């Protein structure tokens, strides 16, 4: 029997992975969760049939969303992660000794439960003493925070469904208020290639620009995400991701990575011309 998982990357483009086994399927209060196993990508899970992570390529996303801001400000101690119930982002954060507190705000408890069961390679670090998990809407959680965090990482789904509130003007405004004066906001910023994703990218960029003096984007190659090419947003109240970055300082930490390195840190902010144009023409 042949079993294939298929995601529509655009109304006219499909991406399929041959599946060995469908391990788990459930409908939570917010979304449908499926866990599958494949020869090519190992174990992976989807939310509302959209790819979230695979065993083989998750390192790229999680390293890039974490090490880039951590290498810009070595004094980050208090971190808020919104979304990221799989634990991959938290796993990378726990590798930094100076971090004192990590708050993970995931709306869907079932995602965390499923990942603890089936994705120990990302979720095991959720047990770290510094990690506190809150099962709540990120928009609600952040509404009452003021001048608290050194770093906020928005590790969300796409802006269709439960993640919608995490791409809004009110959310970015609340993030601005919740960050301290050296605060950095990093968010998964969708793909510039297919229109449905690039529309979200443009509106998110325009909204961030309205609040943060520094809003730059950086890129990574993620094979299982639409178009395989993904962007992250780096927004801050003052720290510049290249000028305030000290390669030697980060290399001295001796953190072993598979994707991120200090040369790539500078390079990943150099975007293709069509993406620069897209950003110049951003509107809400």
């Amino acid at each position, binding site marked *: 029997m042949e079993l294939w998982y298929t995601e529509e990357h655009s109304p006219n483009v499909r991406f399929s992975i041959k599946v060995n086994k469908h391990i788990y399927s459930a409908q939570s209060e917010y979304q449908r969760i499926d866990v599958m196993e494949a020869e090519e990508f190992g174990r992976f899970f989807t939310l509302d049939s959209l790819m979230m992570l695979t065993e083989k390529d998750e390192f790229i996303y999680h390293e890039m969303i974490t090490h880039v801001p951590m290498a810009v400000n070595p004094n980050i101690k208090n971190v808020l992660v919104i979304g990221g119930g799989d634990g991959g982002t938290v796993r990378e954060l726990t590798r930094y000794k100076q971090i004192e507190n990590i708050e993970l705000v995931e709306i869907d408890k079932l995602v965390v439960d499923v990942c603890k069961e089936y994705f120990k390679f990302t979720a095991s670090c959720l047990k770290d003493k510094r990690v506190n998990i809150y099962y709540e809407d990120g928009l*609600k959680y952040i509404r*009452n925070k003021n001048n608290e965090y050194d770093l906020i990482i928005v590790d969300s789904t796409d802006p269709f469904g*439960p993640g919608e509130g995490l791409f*809004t*003007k*009110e*959310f970015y405004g*609340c993030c601005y208020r919740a960050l301290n004066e050296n605060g950095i906001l990093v968010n998964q910023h969708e793909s510039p290639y297919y229109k449905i994703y690039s529309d979200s990218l443009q509106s998110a960029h325009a909204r961030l620009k309205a609040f943060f003096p520094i809003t730059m984007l950086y890129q990574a190659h993620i094979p299982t995400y639409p178009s395989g090419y993904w962007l992250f947003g780096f927004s801050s109240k003052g720290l510049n991701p290249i000028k305030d970055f000290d390669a030697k300082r980060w290399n001295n930490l001796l953190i072993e990575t598979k994707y991120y390195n200090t040369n790539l840190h500078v390079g990943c902010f150099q975007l293709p011309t069509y993406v620069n144009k897209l950003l110049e023409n951003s509107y809400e």
Partner: protein
Amino acid sequence: MYKLNQKKMPIYEALNNYKSLRRVPFDVPGHKRGRANKELTEFLGLNCMSADVNSMKPLDNLCHPVSVIKEAEELAADAFGAKHAFFMVNGTTSAVQSMVMTACKRGDKIIMPRNVHRSAINALVVCGAVPVYVNPGVNKELGIPLGMSVKNVKQAILEHPEAKAILVNNPTYYGVCSPLKEIVKLAHKNGMLVLVDEAHGTHFYFNDSLPISAMAAGADMAAVSMHKTGGSLTQSSFLLINNEISSGYVRQIINLTQTTSGSYLLLSSLDMSRKNLALNGVDIFNTIIELADYSRKEINKLGGYYAFGKELINNDSVYDFDTTKLSVHTMNIGLAGIEVYDILRDDYNIQIEFGDIGNFLAIISVGDKALAIERLISSLAEIKRLYSKNKAGLFDHEYINPLAAMTPQKAFYSEKISIPINNSCGKISSEFVMCYPPGIPILAPGEYITKDILNYIAYAKEKGCFMTGTEDINIEKINVVSEFDSRKE
């Protein structure tokens, strides 16, 4: 408990049967089940177009129901605890007008609060009844009109014992309820009918923790906007009757002005929403009450805003409060309600029901999800952070007591002249001026134009309220009753 089987949906069932026959249509509507205009059918969907059919034997006739519409009316009457229910397709406006025209002829008096919807005063223009206004109490802090107190209704009855009916809002747009049971008792003792505008009160019939409904309070007629909070399509509504009102006579009154081509899309939406509320209403409205209570609590935590609720109850002009209404006072962050309304729409992509000078109102209903509520609350937090300013300079308005010179009908049809609104002080208005929504007239035909009213209109315009009512679309000119006709009065 219901007497009839509320799972039934006679109009829906008849439409489904009819569709499956695939009968060849040589009748109206001319789009012939969607085949005439491909663009329109793609936009609305074939299901929708194929249900847009004409009255015919198997589908009954709204003007004279004898089969499936009759059965659907009986089910609705049972669901609402009424003697009879009429399916209305010309909006709750036509239901309100049918109530007034059933109770009053030309020259008859009708007691009503001044903060009625324009549809009620329009009915007076059409039928020539004479309004006796009861001053609704005013909450000075919030600047909103309240309900009628028993004392004021008693006084109106004493002064106008010949009045034929009393019209009551249950609730007002903001959620304020009058002592309906008490008013019904008073009215019936004095041989008057009680007509209830329940445009914003459909949900009262389906959850006991909400204020009392018109039918439960023993009122004679009620106009119920099923489409506002009950989930049916826009423009569909119920007119309920009770007690000694003759259903045949009411039908005649309705048929004076209602279309003879009643839309089956609207009729089936009423039928299906009635079933949904009858079977699931308790749970649905429990969820809504919970969401609204939660929103009030969170908004009040933000500081500056005041989302008001049951604490307004004073057993007089606020007898009860509809907690599903999310009304928020904004003056203390230095912004008018209409300004917050505009910012929410333009900057945060959130559309709310209306904003006036001091408040805005968000409608929470069957379709709402907790995540959308979080967006509203967080946006309000941001608006306060980014836009709040000193309260000074904001117009502190109070309810303006109208000075009536002649009946709405007489003023509307009298000899009139069009003059610049700024020069109209002291004249008698021949038309309406209102902000829409909420559609409560600032000025109604037959009322004196005063300085206070002109100041209010100027301020509302400046703050960006959407004004309507006058013949002049720009609201710069107003029709006033000519000197000659004024003197005759």
